[in-house]
């Protein structure tokens, strides 16, 4: 039917290689074989000019009604999520992630998701209120959403959804109702807010970007990536009220575990192929990641070679181990940042034993040796790394940072200026409450006096600053030497500390295996617990 329009274009489809193009009602080309929508439209030939649609795409133009409420128009929940993903992608690109992230990877994942869950780009879309959903765009040349729906189903939908869809649930979007039943959410693998982050995480991983999951969550917490109250940004015509609130309202930043789990699930849903291999020059590689954490916690650079030895011995640096491959049945989805931190902790344990005894003995020795060295050279300050000195530097900085974080958390605004109205009958109450809150805030704000402004949250991936600068957290120990920890025996260098301990290994079932740390915490050496605390603070993993 569209042959006359598509015959000028004979490139094979990138996904399946077939040359079988058709035209959607948004005038965009799609492959009849694999339903891949390409960036080509009927009149614009330049393929490379594609960028993610700035305007929100929505239900097929034929069935769209602008008359529902003044200025509003019908929209679906997945459009809301698409808008959020777009904002998040833009924020990430703004932070320095390569622009491909938005245009190709995340966008592809999202299309794939919609297609697989049969929300769009499909001949047989699933929808609770109508058999067909037409997706297209208002802005023709830059269309983002396209429906594959063929013309024969078109007339049905116009009358279909407007009646039963809206009468049952009060919401701005058309299909909020089906997001509210847990059963449907699960069976149809619908989106939720943590999943937007999970998708971002997968896309970042695909690009092998340096932003780890812990970083991502910290950026979210610092509001550098829109997540809390992101619905504020929805365009005017997307009216937002009622049940939509339950879907888009965020009252907590999801935990690391939660997002990781969601990402794993999404990878399964999307049936993703093997991810690009994590090579040793890639920032997710434990060797590089551990270097970053060593700098962060002010440990000497020399430690890095030891960490690398541990990586080598444990075969954790191999590509096959590091690369995530959802298509393989037993592939693990690694916690890259946690793993790097764990490598440092293990190295520290190998080096200092960390049993509240050996490490202090060793640090005393280091100080003694330092004194001897000083007598000989008497040029520089201490050269040797002493764990005690390190602890005395890092601990106060950590406590300060914790305090800062807690007060930041205490002051975090969660509620949006744009009022969420759960139901029409509560509208007056909700609006009044918002007014009261605003008045209270302004009246108490005048009483706060000249409080120093909260430090502008910089998108730095480092939370501590070590060195001579004025606002640094303490002196830098990066150039200290670890000589004391090694001794020569024969030709090789050996660690002075030869013991390594591990907690009792217990058999436990995978199903009811839960948090063992809280049970063990009290029996573990204090120094070890402190070190775990340091890293869990850095990675925002709270136990």
């Amino acid at each position, binding site marked *: 039917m569209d042959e006359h329009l598509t015959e000028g274009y004979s490139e094979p489809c990138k996904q399946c290689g077939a040359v079988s193009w058709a035209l959607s009602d948004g005038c965009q080309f799609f492959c009849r074989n694999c339903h891949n929508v390409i960036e080509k439209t009927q009149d614009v030939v330049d393929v490379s000019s594609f960028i993610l649609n700035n305007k929100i795409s929505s239900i097929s133009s034929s069935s769209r009604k602008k008359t529902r409420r003044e200025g509003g128009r019908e929209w679906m929940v997945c459009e809301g999520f698409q808008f959020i993903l777009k904002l998040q992608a833009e924020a990430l690109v703004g932070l320095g992630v390569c622009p491909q992230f938005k245009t190709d990877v995340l966008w592809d994942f999202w299309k794939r998701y919609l297609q697989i869950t049969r929300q769009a780009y499909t001949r047989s879309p699933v929808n609770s209120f109508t058999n067909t959903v037409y997706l297209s765009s208002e802005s023709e040349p830059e269309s983002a959403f396209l429906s594959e729906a063929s013309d024969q189903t078109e007339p049905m939908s116009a009358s279909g959804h407007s009646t039963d869809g809206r009468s049952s649930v009060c919401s701005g979007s058309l299909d909020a109702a089906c997001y509210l039943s847990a059963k449907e959410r699960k069976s149809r693998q619908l989106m939720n807010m943590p999943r937007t982050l999970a998708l971002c995480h997968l896309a970042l991983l695909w690009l092998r970007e340096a932003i780890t999951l812990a970083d991502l969550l910290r950026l979210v917490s610092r509001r550098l990536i829109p997540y809390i109250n992101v619905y504020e940004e929805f365009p005017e015509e997307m009216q937002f009220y009622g049940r939509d609130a339950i879907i888009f309202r965020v*009252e907590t930043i999801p935990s690391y575990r939660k997002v990781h789990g969601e990402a794993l699930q999404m990878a399964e849903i999307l049936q993703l192929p093997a991810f690009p291999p994590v090579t040793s020059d890639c920032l997710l590689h434990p060797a590089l990641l551990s270097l970053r954490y060593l700098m962060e916690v002010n440990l000497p650079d020399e430690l890095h070679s030891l960490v690398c030895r541990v990586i080598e011995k444990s075969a954790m640096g191999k590509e096959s181990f590091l690369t995530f491959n959802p298509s393989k049945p037993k592939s693990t989805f690694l916690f890259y940042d946690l793993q790097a931190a764990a490598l440092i902790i293990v190295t520290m344990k190998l080096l200092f034993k960390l049993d509240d005894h050996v490490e202090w003995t060793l640090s005393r020795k280091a100080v003694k040796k330092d004194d001897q060295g000083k007598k000989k050279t008497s040029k520089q300050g201490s050269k040797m790394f002493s764990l005690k000195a390190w602890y005395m530097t890092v601990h106060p900085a950590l406590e300060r940072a914790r305090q800062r974080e807690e007060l930041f958390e205490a002051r975090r605004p*969660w509620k949006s200026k744009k009022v969420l109205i759960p139901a029409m009958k509560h509208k007056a109450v909700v609006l*009044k409450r918002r007014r*009261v809150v605003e*008045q209270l*805030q302004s009246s108490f704000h005048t*009483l706060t006096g000249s409080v120093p402004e909260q430090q502008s949250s910089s998108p730095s991936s480092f939370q501590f600053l070590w060195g001579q600068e004025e606002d640094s957290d303490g002196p830098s120990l990066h150039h200290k030497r670890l000589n004391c920890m090694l001794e020569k025996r024969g030709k090789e260098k050996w660690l002075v500390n030869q013991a390594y301990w591990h907690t009792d290994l217990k058999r436990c079932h995978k199903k009811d295996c839960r948090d063992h740390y809280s049970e063990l915490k009290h029996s573990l050496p204090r120094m070890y617990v402190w070190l775990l605390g340091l890293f869990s603070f850095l990675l925002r993993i709270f136990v």
Partner: protein
Amino acid sequence: MDDIEAELGISRSVGNEDFSDSSEDERVARKIRPPILLHSSTAQARAKESGFHESSRLCLKAIRDAMLHHHWQEAAQYLSAYSQTLEDTTVNKQSLACEIIWRLGTEILQHHPNSRLEDFNALYEQMKNSGVKNYAKICLEHSFHLLLNGHIYDAKRQLSVAASWRYGKQSVPQSLDLKLIHAYCGFLDYVIWHMKKSSVSEAEDNSSNREMHSYFRQASVTLQEIIAQPGVWDPFVLSYVDMLEFYNDQEEALKVLQNYAYNKDYPSNPNAHVYLYQFLKRHEAPPAKLISILKVLHHLVPSHELMQEYCYLLVNSVVPGHLEESLPVVFNLLDYPSWKNDLDTWNCLLTVMTVFKRKGLQHLIANEWKQRKDFWLTMHYRAYHGRKDSELNRELLLVKAKVAKLLGEHGGLSSFRQGHEELCEHSLHLQEGQDPGASVGLSGALPHSLPSTPDIENAEITPILPFLFLGNEQDAQDHDLMQRLNIGYILNVTTHLPLYHYSLGLFKYKRLPATDSNKQNLRQYFEEAFEFIGIVHRFFLSYKQNLWTFLCIIISVKSTILNNL
């Protein structure tokens, strides 16, 4: 000591000096239930809470810390952040947040250097309307605040608005609040009436007079209604009676007061009897009537200040039997430490005793004395008291000495005589010499003439061992001294001295209830004392570097006990 306490009806928890540490702790533990801490939660609850709730918990903690440190600006800043909890979607959290913001907000405004009355008004108005449950309470508080700032008419207006407020069903506590609002409405009418009255008396003006009467009518109607309900309505009753008296309706006033005092439905209220007594006294009622009222009051509050008047009334009464009643009244009064240094009370006792002696009723005195000689000696007649009185109130010392002399005739207590005869003799001697002109010359000589027995009370605090001090009651009271000496533990070997700074929590206390007599078997306390000292000693040894962490044992014993040791 215990017996007398029971006799005096002092609740045991008040007289805490009589209990050893362990029982003290137990009782405290039983009495105080752990408060619900909103700003902290169990780890379990924490794992489940949302980020929003975590923020509000942390914010509340920050507010609390800022308030405890008197950083009011910081507290205001956090409260401004906290106000978002009003938008909590769970209903009970939201109403809780309302109350928290109301209470903390007013507290912060109260202390904040830059807060104005408008801020208060705005906060009250906002909180009134967002937490419907607390509407009545907040209204009351608001009008109290206005009253404190002297805006009586504004306060009145607030209350009238609150009184006419209706919102759905009234809950029980709400109806109570509304009752109070009603009562204070009437009370404020009275206050305005009172103001008008004083201004009217100066300038006779018909219209303002009429206005005043209209306030009277409003107030009287409301107050009458309120007073008719059982309860404690002291200021309301007084104001109502005041108005009735002004309009010469004594009968009605008397009826109100009698009902207030004697109606069984009302909670027992000593003030009711006081008001009745004062009213009758104002209107010159016969002494018999007054005595009957005070008798009830004496039964309720034996230490009431009116008891002196009661005593004189009884002494001067012609009714047989009244005189005999007067003695226990005044003795009772002096059982209470609040009258310990009151000259008038001692004078009263002296008068009564002289009257009794004159009438040959010494056996009654002896009877009263027998009951309380043990603790009166320690409470009123120790050398320490003598010295203190001589410094502060010479006259009191004289009266006390005279009383002691009269009592000494009955007591037959050799130790008392030994200790105080000299004092008594001296005081009498002093009195004779105390002519208007001679008092100046004597003032310097007096302290030297006080008993000069080798008394531990005059001794300085003495280090016995590097970590062990011996001190007396004065030292035990001297908080600064003990802090200076780094004393941490105090062993109190008396039955009567309180653990002075127990409530501060700075010192660890141990009491060994040994009495100050040669019959006391001290051996039973040795073990306990050694154990306590031993604990402290070990503590001392383990902190050798810090030689200043010490303890002190304060033993307030006289030489008799020291000899036994």
